[in-house]
């Protein structure tokens, strides 16, 4: 790795540079999901008929996945705590638990989608389903990205290196969790 510029080490705002960048990244994510969900809500309110479509989503699977993500957020924040205490290996273990959560989430999702597609609820079946797959798919892509990032962070954390990154990955992960917290009622509960 080449040496870091001095610029990276400065902190006029008193927020470490990496963390500041993550906040801005989340800002840009808020507007991406915001635009998509705003569009969905408009359509949803315009079409009473979508109730009937939404009725076919499986609340239990959605709820289970919410539980998985909430729990993985817990392990992520505990990893952050461990990293702050300087306990890299423990942080790494907790991060691996979080990655496990991500994997569970994705596997459940794959199973759920397969079932729905088998029943004819494909992305083109109805515009409700188009939103369903697009919103959840975009979110799933973020889950995947977060898991990949955490693999790298966990591996260096296990060697007690780059511990500050544990917190950054965590912040991102909690955001992914929050997005799902809203997707869950929007796609599954409101029927």
């Amino acid at each position, binding site marked *: 790795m080449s040496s870091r510029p001095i610029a990276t080490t400065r902190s006029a705002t008193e927020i470490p540079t990496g963390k500041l960048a993550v906040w801005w990244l989340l800002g840009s994510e808020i507007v991406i999901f915001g635009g998509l969900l705003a569009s969905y809500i408009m359509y949803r309110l315009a079409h009473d008929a979508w109730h009937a479509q939404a009725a076919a989503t499986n609340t239990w699977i959605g709820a289970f996945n919410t539980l998985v993500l909430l729990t993985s957020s817990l392990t992520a924040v505990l990893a952050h705590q461990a990293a702050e205490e300087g306990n890299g290996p423990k942080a790494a273990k907790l991060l691996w638990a979080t990655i496990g959560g991500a994997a569970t989430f994705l596997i459940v999702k794959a199973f759920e989608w397969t079932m729905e597609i088998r029943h004819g609820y494909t992305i083109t079946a109805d515009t409700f389903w188009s939103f369903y797959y697009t919103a959840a798919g975009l979110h799933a892509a973020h889950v995947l990205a977060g898991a990949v990032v955490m693999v790298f962070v966990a591996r260096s954390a296990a060697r007690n290196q780059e511990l500050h990154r544990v917190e950054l990955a*965590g912040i991102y992960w909690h955001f992914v969790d929050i997005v799902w917290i809203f997707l869950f009622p929007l796609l599954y*509960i409101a029927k």
Partner: protein
Amino acid sequence: MSEHHHPNYVKIWAILVGLLVVSVLGPMLGIQIVTLITAFGIAVVKAYLVAKNFMHLNIEKRYIVYMLTTCLVFMFLFFAGTAPDVMEAEGSNWEKPSFELYDEAASHTVGHGTAHH
């Protein structure tokens, strides 16, 4: 890195799970207003708890909160400017006849497969 007092994360997680249970059970009453509150009210509370305690926004610099809220506010702005057109089936010099036909059709055919298994 700032040293700060850690909230009891497991307790917060337990509250979150409790809220999740309520939001799943709420709709079973079948009262729409209750569903809305338990679904979206609770989502807001959950998001708040995660943002505050897990993302530590409570001890982060204030302007980060302002920045993130600004992003949200702009989305409301987008919604407010767009919804009056998109949610209507007709406007000052247009109508979407196919929009209504769609609503008719969609309320009859629930998907293409067997919805109930």
